[in-house]
């Protein structure tokens, strides 16, 4: 049974994952070349990169060793606040005859959905609270108030996005296959409509996240099997049915009880309130998430640069590929502490409430190695994202940057042929040896 030894080449990165659903990070291995990755050589030497990795590992370990009752109490407080907001919100929208309560109800329900998706859902599903062994905050079991099924979101987010962060052709979150947000993405005609498309995506963001998780593009490119794709579709349909049944059928039906008091339109008012609450959540989550990776000065990488990277390089790629948003404490809670995007990408599996504390250590290291810590107010980062969308929506003059130009097509063909040649050569050398 020696195949276990030969099947996988061990990554130079030590195991880091706290839970099996968050199997990051596995390094990209170049099967033909042992040459170490080039990421970060502009800033430091390989020795320094290793030291950088060790220092960040130490920060992570210090927090993990310190986890305990206060972290458990915190997430339970947030859950309590979320439940309270949700229940009060649902009561409020049952009072369409009293507009102040009705509007407050919509806002509270929106806040409840934001807390559920961000500080609770996103973080719990990262396995940040798995150490508590409490089924309510277990990353493998948690399901969020969102049409995207947790399982597929976790694969696309925890594994793909957090492992291959900002690597072109691997991180499907660079522009979400819809927008051109980086100069190294190929330009297509639809990118002329970058800004209006982004606006539409913002309004229906949960549906976008769901669609992203179905991975139609991956299936059409032959990267996932038909069975895998159909299973994704089935899970998505099941989750959609549940969410639609709850928000747009069951609760409005309960509103029929109000018809004698309010009038025939009571169920419609409740339906409308649910739609608005979902849109509030969509807008907020879109804004926060777009500010995490898309402002100017956030770096992206080519697959070749990241092959055979070390732990320190993996950390550095996360740091260079993320941006923070500054703000006060309640703001950070509402963003799920994703306003500490840099810290989140360095340590996706430590409870998010620890990010502010960890940020101090990260800033010291940034200073030590002369790096750039990308942070700014929400308005500044948003303006930067909008500018990026506008700039990269314009047709580039370089034909190699245009996706369907003859030059790009020839380049892609050459790359495909080169890869095929390599596979063939490897097969032949195996046969002869």
């Amino acid at each position, binding site marked *: 049974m020696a195949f276990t030894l030969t099947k996988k080449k061990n990554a130079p990165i030590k195991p880091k994952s706290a839970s099996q659903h968050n199997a990051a990070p596995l390094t990209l291995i170049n099967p033909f070349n042992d040459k170490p990755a080039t990421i970060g050589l502009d800033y430091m030497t390989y020795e320094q990169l290793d030291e950088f990795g060790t220092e960040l590992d130490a920060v992570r370990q210090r927090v993990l060793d310190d986890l305990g009752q206060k972290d458990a109490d915190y997430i339970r407080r947030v859950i309590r606040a979320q439940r309270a907001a949700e229940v009060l919100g649902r009561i409020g929208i049952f009072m369409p005859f009293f507009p102040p309560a009705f509007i407050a109800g919509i806002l509270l329900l929106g806040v409840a959905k934001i807390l559920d998706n961000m500080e609770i859902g996103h973080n719990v599903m990262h396995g940040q609270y798995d*150490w508590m062994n409490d089924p309510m905050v277990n990353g493998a079991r948690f399901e969020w108030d969102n049409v995207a099924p947790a399982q597929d979101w976790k694969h696309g987010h925890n594994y793909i996005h957090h492992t291959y962060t900002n690597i072109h052709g691997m991180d499907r979150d660079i522009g979400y296959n819809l927008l051109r947000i980086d100069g190294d993405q190929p330009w297509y005609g639809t990118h002329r409509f970058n800004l209006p498309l982004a606006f539409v995506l913002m309004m229906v963001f949960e549906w976008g996240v769901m669609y992203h998780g179905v991975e139609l593009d991956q299936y059409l490119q032959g990267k996932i099997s038909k069975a895998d794709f159909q299973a994704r579709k089935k899970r998505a349909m099941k989750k959609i049915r549940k969410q639609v049944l709850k928000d747009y059928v069951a609760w409005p039906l309960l509103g029929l009880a109000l018809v004698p008091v309010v009038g025939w339109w009571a169920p419609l008012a409740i339906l409308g309130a649910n739609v608005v609450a979902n849109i509030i959540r969509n807008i907020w989550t879109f804004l926060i998430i777009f500010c995490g990776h898309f402002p100017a000065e956030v770096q992206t990488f080519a697959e070749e640069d990241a092959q055979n990277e070390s732990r320190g390089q993996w950390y550095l790629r996360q740091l260079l590929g993320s941006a923070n948003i500054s703000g006060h404490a309640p703001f950070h809670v509402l963003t799920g502490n994703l306003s500490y995007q840099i810290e989140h990408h360095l340590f996706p599996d430590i409870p998010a409430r620890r990010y502010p504390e960890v940020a101090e250590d990260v800033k010291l290291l940034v200073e030590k190695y002369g790096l750039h810590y990308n942070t700014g107010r929400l308005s500044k980062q948003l303006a930067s994202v909008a500018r990026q969308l506008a700039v990269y929506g314009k047709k580039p003059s370089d034909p190699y940057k245009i996706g369907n130009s003859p030059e790009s097509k020839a380049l892609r063909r050459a790359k495909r042929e080169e890869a095929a040649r390599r596979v063939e050569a490897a097969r032949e050398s195996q046969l002869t040896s």
Partner: protein
Amino acid sequence: MGIIRKTLTSRPVAALASPHTVDHYLEQIHPMLAAGNVRARVVEVIRETGDASTVVMRPNGAWKGFVPGQHVQFGVEVDGTRRVRVFSVSSSRASKDKTFSVSVKAHPDGYVSQFLHRELTPGTVVFLSQAEGDFVLPRDVPDHLLLASGGSGITPVMSMVRTLRDSGHTGRVTFLHYARSRADEMFTAQLDELATSDVEVVRVYTREPEPGAEIAGRFHVDHLKHLGIDPTETLTYVCGPAGLIASVRDTYAELGAADQLRMEYFKVPSVDADAADATGTLSFDDAAIETDNSGATILEQAEAAGLKPEFGCRMGVCNTCAIKKNSGAVRHVVTGEICADTDETIKICVQVPIGDVNVAL
């Protein structure tokens, strides 16, 4: 089940609470309030002799009751982490005050049993499962019954004896218990008291026998002869360490009485880390980690490798830790059974690898 509980666990209510459950909302009002999750409040912690404790609990309405001999998953939160272990119910089913109890012997390395023994206070809310297990008395108890136990395996048997006594059972009940010494024995006072009732109580101290004891030493077929028990005609329950169960099982098999025997392993035997089969490589396929087989359980080896697999009881009962084994042979630490199939699901808390093993972890 009351009408309120029925409503709360109905499908329309589940649709309204989706994707969470109604218990996620109820528990915010009060920790004991739940439609489906079993919780209990600790009423009393009785420190028994010999490092054992009995925890008396009042469960919430979700608790469906127990049959004597069953066990329950018992979760208690310590410094933010819920620790779950499986304990046997030790109280009588005929108890009228809606409480029940579990009894636990504090194991020197047992985190939870030590916690119960030293720190658990009345008023604490604990997280339970429904009672589980099929090591239970039949509906119609036959005229002669032998209950045998060893060490802390006494707890489920204690529940059986107490229930039989309280429910006015008139048949002959023989209770044969093995402990190392009187000082080491659980429930000493209760056993002394039981001995005065109709139950025939025989206690054997294997290391420090009582002077003039009628039988001595580890279990032997002569013990049964001495007590006038015919195994082929006596329904027998045995619970305790693997060694006791093995000798009782072999004796009954030899006498052709295997169908009269009901067994429950009680303690996960400590694994011999120097065993000859502690060779090869243990591979965690999903995490792409390989480690030299140390001879410990796969769960322990996974934890030593920095992984954090899900687990519950850590003794092969609750199935929380079950994962897929891709290849290789494993040995069950309790039964010694060896499984070498590919693609089978195993409980990693009670399986040790033999040679190269690859698991989906």
